[in-house]
């Protein structure tokens, strides 16, 4: 790095990175429309906006994975054409993605080495990673197997991989969406340290409190355009949110107050073995979810939440039918279709490749989850099971309207939708059935503020109408917003649920750590 004094004088004159009139057109959709913005050296700059606002498109252009249709990018005052991520890295732009690209069966050092040329010595990488990890307060063992690491630790790998290139600008996409509050604090300290060295950080997040805490500048996007830029420290979370969505955000409305009915879902000593080396065994989980209740399961990712989801949904079945009881019927031996026919509905964590087939249209994805539960409507001609396309098209249209799903074509493939819009579709697909029980894993993961509020409100409304709702989430803000009671998952165990009013962040933190032995590992 150049001397600090020089950096400071530069900062006043030429921005590190500046864009002028960046425009990107997909078909007829203006994903970016005349975007102007600038990042100074040594600045943590927030990029705010709803899903589909054009943040990802802009970032992909800066990082070279997309090419703009029009407009210029200036790097230290010079116009540049970034044609690929490797060119971006050579310039000094690094990126940490929201979804990691790591091989679970390899070690940390091996994963890092994979992004370099083949002639790099593994021991050099290992040593360099070790020194960076000490330098920036990111505890990480280069020889550990990635499969054994928590999500927070995996994120550190990505950050260190990025720091290996000695970047002047680091782009972070929703970095805290997978972290515990403590892990997030560690990350923030690292970010402050990087800023002190004169590096710039482009911080994409929808968590407004974090943005206010970290960032000294913010650019706000809506519908592909920059609508405002401000100093987030001088704003309130409410004013930032209303700039993002273009209107005052409605507060979440609780319609019921503690009126609960019959038990809809009961888990009785639910235990499951592991099906692959990185799976978590479920250990004697017992839980009841009643009509009108929203039970939330908190916990750090990778403590058995995914396994619990698949055990309840019936993607993994139980030998003992009594371990899962849906509306009074022993369902442990039943397939996911039969459980759906009992009135249950499911929204998995991964939208693409689990909740939806990316290459298939929304109407096909409607059929995907509802061919059994809506058999009389979606299928005709008896045993031939001919698909009744018009009924499916009508249901898809209904869901898109109710959930305000924004899309660029009449019936686009699921993979073409932004994360928030696809999530609204997937949640809406289940709500449209008026299920008596709904299980949702990470309802608003990577979803913008507007869509998240919409989804949370619809879960509360579902409970208010007399259904039982079970939510698995890592987002404590979300949990406190919607839960009637809270349980915590750690290492395959589930704590007994307590009323949300009696829970605090500290209590949840203690429960998370109670049997989560892996947390101290990295330190």
């Amino acid at each position, binding site marked *: 790095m150049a001397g600090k004094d020089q950096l400071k004088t530069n900062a006043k004159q030429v921005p590190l990175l500046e864009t002028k009139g960046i425009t990107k057109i*997909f*078909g007829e959709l203006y994903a970016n429309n005349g975007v102007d913005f600038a990042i100074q050296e040594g600045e943590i700059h927030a990029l705010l906006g709803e899903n589909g606002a054009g943040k990802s498109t802009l970032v992909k252009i800066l990082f070279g994975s997309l090419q703009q249709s029009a407009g210029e990018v200036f790097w230290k005052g010079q116009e540049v054409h970034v044609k*690929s991520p*490797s*060119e971006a*890295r*050579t310039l000094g732009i690094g990126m940490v993605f929201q979804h990691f690209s790591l091989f679970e069966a390899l070690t940390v050092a091996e994963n890092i080495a994979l*992004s*370099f*040329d083949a002639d*790099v010595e593994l021991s*050099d990488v290992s040593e*360099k990673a070790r020194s960076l990890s000490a330098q920036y307060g990111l505890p990480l063992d280069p020889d550990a197997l990635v499969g054994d690491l928590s999500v927070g630790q995996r994120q550190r790998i990505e950050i260190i991989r990025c720091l*290996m*290139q*000695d970047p002047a600008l680091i782009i972070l996409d929703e970095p805290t969406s997978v972290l515990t509050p403590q892990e997030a604090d560690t990350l923030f300290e690292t970010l402050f340290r990087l800023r002190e060295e004169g590096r710039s950080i482009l911080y994409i997040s929808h968590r407004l409190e974090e943005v206010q805490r970290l960032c000294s500048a913010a650019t706000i996007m809506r519908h592909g355009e920059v609508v405002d830029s401000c100093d987030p420290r001088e704003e309130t979370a409410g004013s930032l949110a209303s700039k993002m969505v273009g209107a005052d955000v409605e507060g979440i409305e609780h319609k019921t107050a503690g009126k609960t009915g019959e038990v809809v879902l009961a888990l009785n000593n639910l235990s499951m073995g592991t099906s692959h080396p990185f799976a978590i065994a479920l250990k004697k989980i017992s839980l009841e979810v009643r009509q009108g209740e929203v039970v939330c399961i908190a916990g750090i990712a990778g403590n058995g939440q995914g396994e619990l989801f698949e055990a309840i*949904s019936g*993607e993994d079945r139980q030998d003992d039918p009594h371990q899962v009881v849906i509306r009074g019927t022993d369902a442990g031996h039943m*397939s*996911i*279709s039969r459980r*759906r026919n009992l009135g249950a509905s*499911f929204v*998995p964590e*991964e939208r693409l*490749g*689990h*909740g*939806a*087939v*990316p*290459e*298939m249209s929304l109407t*096909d994805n409607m*059929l*995907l*989850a509802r*061919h*059994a539960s809506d058999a009389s409507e979606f*299928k005709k001609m008896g045993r*031939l*099971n*001919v*698909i009744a396309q018009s009924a499916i098209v009508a249901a898809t249209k209904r869901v898109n309207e109710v959930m305000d799903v924004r899309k660029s074509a009449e019936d686009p493939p699921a993979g073409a939708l932004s994360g928030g819009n696809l999530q609204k579709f997937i949640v809406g697909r289940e709500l449209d059935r008026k299920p008596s029980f709904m299980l949702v894993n990470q309802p608003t993961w990577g979803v913008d503020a507007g869509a998240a509020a919409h989804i949370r409100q619809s879960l509360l409304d579902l409970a208010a109408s007399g259904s039982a709702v079970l939510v698995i989430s890592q987002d404590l803000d979300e949990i406190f917003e919607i839960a009637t009671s809270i349980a915590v998952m750690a290492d395959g165990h589930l704590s007994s649920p307590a009323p949300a009013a009696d829970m605090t962040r500290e209590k949840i933190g203690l429960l998370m750590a109670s049997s989560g032995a892996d947390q101290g590992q990295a330190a």
Partner: protein
Amino acid sequence: MRIELQKRPDISKLYSILSPLIALALMVVAGAIMFILLGKNPFHGLYVYFIEPLTDPWSREQILVKATPLTLIAIGLAVCFRSGNWNIGAEGQYLIGGMFGAMIPVLFHGWESPLLLPLMLIMGMAGGALYGFIPAILKSRFGTNEILTSLMLVYVAQQFVDWVVRGPWRDPQGMGFPGTKSFNDSGLLPKIFEFGDAHYGAVIAVIAAVALWFMLSKTLKGFEIAVLGQSPRAGRFAGFSAKQMTLFAFLISGAMAGLAGIGEVSGTVGKLDDKLSLGYGFAAIIVAFLGRLNPLGIVAAGLVLALSYIGGEAAQISIGVSDRATRVFQGLLLFFVLACDTLIHYRVVLVSSVKARM
């Protein structure tokens, strides 16, 4: 510097439709070059191969005869390939189907009945399906690679059928030639025309193609096949079982190959002999892809490939090129079909490797 395939953001609809035709055109160009290298006149060579057979009624019928097994096998393979199961052993299922179908007319040789032919066809399908079931069950139970097991079972089937026609089922009056007794008339698929070789197997193939097209594009089963082929995890979420699909897909494609086998035995040869294995099961893989895994497209693709067989026979006689040339044409066609599909979905870019700064 290295070469990379990058996924195209938007895929041209036009090129997707034109792809098989582009592949055919490229094959013709490559074929012309091959003729020049062999010292033959390329225009005459291509004419003999691809135009002349169409001008002669006898050749046209032969095309129909060859297209029948190719189409039947390929439509079964389309179901299999779409579901993400890679059955490379259709040739074996075709042979065992032919052998099973021949079982009743061989073991009960004197029996004449209108029931005989339907029974033979059913037996043929059952034989092919059972033989297809072996790699399917190995895959779904033990996780073996179906490409290897199905392929290896082809060689088992070839040896087994060869032994059967030389040993236990050999016609005692057959002068020692390998082969069973010729079937009675009620064991033969009737001919379509008064004179000539085309038999009703061709009609069965078209009916089967329409039926499978309907299943793939209009029914929930077809949807299940597509979902499991594209995203097994989403398929599990939908309540579909990938393991059961493996069994189903191999049963269907085995049955279709078996039907092709008994069709060939009963419609073309009239007995089971040692010359049943002509490579249709492998050529049908080309047909399936050339027809874009769509049963209706496959009917057309089957005719194209059959043309290359008949043209190849003619070329041996009239211009004296080896029958290997036919194989080369078929291989070129598969290569170009797959290459065109790949280039429609991906673009080739040269990437100069960037040294990491450490």
